[in-house]
Structures are given as structure tokens and as C-alpha cells.
């Protein structure tokens, strides 16, 4: 099965079809918590991607060596190590960002997206594929976080990435940068994306039914012509 998938597809599937946030509903905590602004969202997604890629890399290398009983403990230990690395580097080099993302950097450890990809993919595939998959998922995560962060920032402050977008008269909706706004925005976004794919599916089915009807109508008229 997996061999048929080209390397490019391994990467692309994470962007939309299996988007970790909108389709798989994984890693919700950071998604909701840090997306008060697009900048935070991007930073969080990059940090997550870093951890995801490197732990996928390590896990896929040592996958045959880990006994299944301590599998989870071992994976999560590896993940935690990389997260600590990110945390320390951020604190040392980007103190402002580290402050903004607050306590959510350590929570990357328990982002089920990462552990999930280890279990589902990295532990069963070659190093190259694992990294590609991780990169794809990470990018998908980035897309989702950016969208969410940008939307919330736009409505909540009238700006995106610090640039004023809304006209001056616009009164920011504070709720968008509150917890409630995070839930509402993500819920609505998911709903709208779903309704888009739902609509496509319905259209596909309608064409099938229509074809079936047409074919049937032809079939019914034929014998009449013969008579």
C-alpha cells in the first residue's frame, strides 16, 4: 500500500486531505491557546514542526530496536528531549517569543499529533518517508495555525502580523482574542471547511444519480421506438 504513494504525496497529504487540525482534530490545545496572533501561531507551528521532524527522524531510525512495552514511554521521552531543546533555545535566543508562547511550549510534548505520527507512521516507515510525512504534517499544522491566528488577530485587533488591515473606525472584537473566541473561530472554520467538502461530495453524487436517470430514461424509450 504505502509503496504506491509517491514521496511528494507523502508530503502533500498533510497539507489538506489529512490536515492535522481541520481533518484529524489533533493537537487542539496549542491550536486554541497560542493563536491570539498570526505571529504566535507561526512560531508555535514551527516549533512543533521542528520537534515533529526530528523525533520522526530519530524514531524511524531506532524503530526496530524498541520493545513494544516501553514504546510509548520511549517515544515520548525522545519527544520531550527535543521539546526541551526548543524551549532552551527559545529562552536563550528569543526571550520575547518564549514569553508569549508561555507554558505552551512544554505542552508540545503531549500534542497528540506528534505521538500519533510516531505511532502511526514513523515507527513503520523508512527514515526518508517519516521525515517527509512529518514535514507535511508540520506544514499542515502551520497552515491551520496561521489561518486561525490571522483570523483571530484580524477581528480581535484589526491587524494581521501587526499591520493594520481594518479601517480605523473598526472597533476590535475583544472576544476573538479570548478563550471563547478561540473555540468559536475554530468551530466555525471547521464547519465551513466541512461544508465545502460536503458540498463537493453532494455534487459528485448528484451527477451519478443524474447519469443513472438519464441512462434509464434512454433505456425506457428505446423499446418504445422499436415498437
Amino acid at each position, binding site marked *: 500500500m*504505502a509503496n504506491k504513494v509517491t514521496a511528494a504525496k507523502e508530503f502533500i497529504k498533510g497539507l489538506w486531505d489529512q490536515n492535522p487540525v481541520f481533518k484529524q482534530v*489533533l493537537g487542539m490545545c496549542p491550536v486554541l491557546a497560542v493563536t491570539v496572533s498570526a505571529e504566535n501561531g507561526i512560531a508555535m507551528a514551527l516549533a512543533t514542526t521542528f520537534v515533529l521532524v526530528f523525533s520522526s527522524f530519530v524514531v524511524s531510525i531506532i524503530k526496530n530496536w524498541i520493545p513494544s*512495552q*516501553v514504546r510509548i514511554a520511549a517515544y515520548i521521552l525522545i519527544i520531550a528531549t527535543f521539546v526541551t531543546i526548543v524551549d532552551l533555545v527559545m529562552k536563550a535566543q528569543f526571550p520575547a517569543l518564549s514569553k508569549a508562547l508561555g507554558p505552551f511550549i512544554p505542552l508540545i510534548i503531549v500534542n497528540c499529533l506528534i505521538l*500519533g505520527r510516531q*505511532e*502511526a507512521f514513523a515507527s513503520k516507515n523508512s527514515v526518508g518517508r517519516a521525515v517527509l510525512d512529518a514535514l507535511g504534517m508540520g506544514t499542515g499544522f502551520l497552515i491551520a495555525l496561521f489561518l486561525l491566528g490571522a483570523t483571530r488577530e484580524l477581528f480581535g485587533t484589526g491587524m494581521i502580523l501587526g499591520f493594520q488591515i481594518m479601517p480605523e473606525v473598526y472597533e476590535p472584537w475583544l472576544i476573538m482574542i479570548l478563550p471563547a473566541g478561540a473555540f468559536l473561530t475554530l468551530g466555525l472554520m471547521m464547519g465551513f471547511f466541512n461544508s465545502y467538502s460536503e458540498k463537493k461530495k453532494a455534487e459528485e453524487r448528484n451527477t*451519478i444519480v443524474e447519469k*443513472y436517470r438519464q441512462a434509464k430514461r434512454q433505456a425506457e424509450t428505446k423499446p418504445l421506438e422499436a415498437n
Partner: protein
Amino acid sequence: MDLGFIIAISTMGGLGFLFAGGLALADRKLRVEENPLIGKVNEALPGANCGACGKAGCYDFAVNVVEGKAKVNGCPVGGEETAQAVATIMGVDAGASEKLLPIVLCRGGNAEAVKKMADYYGPLSCSAMDLVSGGEKMCYYGCLGGGDCVEACPFNAMFMNEDGLPEVIEELCTGCGMCAQACPKDIIEMHPESHNVFVYCKNHDDPKTSKDVCKVACIGCGICARKSDGGVVMDNNLGIIQYDVIDPDKIPFDKCRTGAIQRTDSKPDQDINLN
């Protein structure tokens, strides 16, 4: 090598050792025997324990699959690969039995069947309609046209046509039989694909009544039964086909006055190409 480094590695090494030991011990002492299938299915799952399937984690989902309470494709995270892997373990695809198709055994749509002199008022679901004097049509046995079967189809393989009767899109049908279960009048029957002769009626009324209530009813005249060498048997004013003995060539299809008995493979709409 400084002291901090040594303390760090020894602490982590020690903790790792300690918990690995604990788990190893637990694994040995606390192992519980269970259906090996559960383990296998669990292996095939992503193991993210995200709960997206609505179950309490991957293991619980595996238990439910093995017990038949969850569908093999119930894991939204694993996608198709996982579904196939699980299906293979569960042996769902195995088995070469003939595919069943639902056959709608009523052709008394809005144009053919006679309505009662009073209008039905209430919910338009077949099962609910059936409770109130058997529905709006005079024929007690016919299709109610409420579309319960269409609703029940999990694969969107059915639709209600202009005449108010359900139709099956065979290409989309998986033969699960949900539609047949949903029909309160038992009009939809599941038949192997090889069956090609059907009496498209379920009416048991006497000839006069059945003629009155529907243009395309089986009126129980019995012509088909007399010519078929036991391939069709009359039961209470209705022709019942005996699929193990029937010889389609003996049935005088053109003699049936209402066209209730028909042969499907003679219909030209067999080769509908949907692609």
C-alpha cells in the same frame, strides 16, 4: 566531564531504568490473557489515543471492532490504510459469497396506485404512516413513498424517483440490507444478483380489489403459475417465485395483464455505464 553532566545522565538513566523495570515487572505480573485479535487490531491502529473515533482510545476501539461494535473503518486518523489493515485482520473482505441486491417489489407509484378518499395528515415517514390505517394508498401492501429506505441507506445508493418510488443505484450499493430492514411493508427484498425474475407486487387482495387499488398490482389471476411448471406458486392471490426451480423461458411475461411479473435481464437498462 563536569559533575552536572554526570548527575544529569545518571538521573535520567536511573529514572528510565527504574520505570522500565517497573513496567517490565508489571508486564510480567499483570499480563491478562485476551482475544489475540484485539492485540493485532490495536497494533494496526495509529495508537495516538486521540479519541477521535469516539471510543476511549485505540485499545478500546480495537476491542469494539473485534466485538463487532465498531466499524473497521471507524478510525478517522488512520485513514484508508488503517481501515484496510484492520479489515484484513478481521477478515471482513474475505468470503466470495454472491453479492446481494435490494429489489423494490412494488411499482405502484403515484401514477399507478389509487389514493384513499381521505388525505393522510402526519409525519411522512413510512413507518409512522404505516401505523395510521396503513398509509395513504388504497393498497394496504404497497410502497408508502416516504423514503425510509433512502434515509436508511448508508451509502447514498438510493433515491426517490418522480413517481414516488425508491430506486437503487446498483453501482453504489453494497448489499448491506439496511433498506430492506427499514421498509415497514417488507417491499424491499435482498436477492442474489443471479435472480432475474420478480413479481413486482406484494398485494394479497382478491382479484377485484387489487384491480381497483392499483394499475400494476398482481391480481392473482394465476396465469404465470399455470404455465411455469412450479416456478411460480400462487399464495393467497399473489404469485411467489420459486427461485430454485424457475425457468424464465417458460413464464409468459406478455400474458401478465398488469405487467407485475418481469424478467430483469431482458430489460435493456442493464449496461448503464456510470463512468
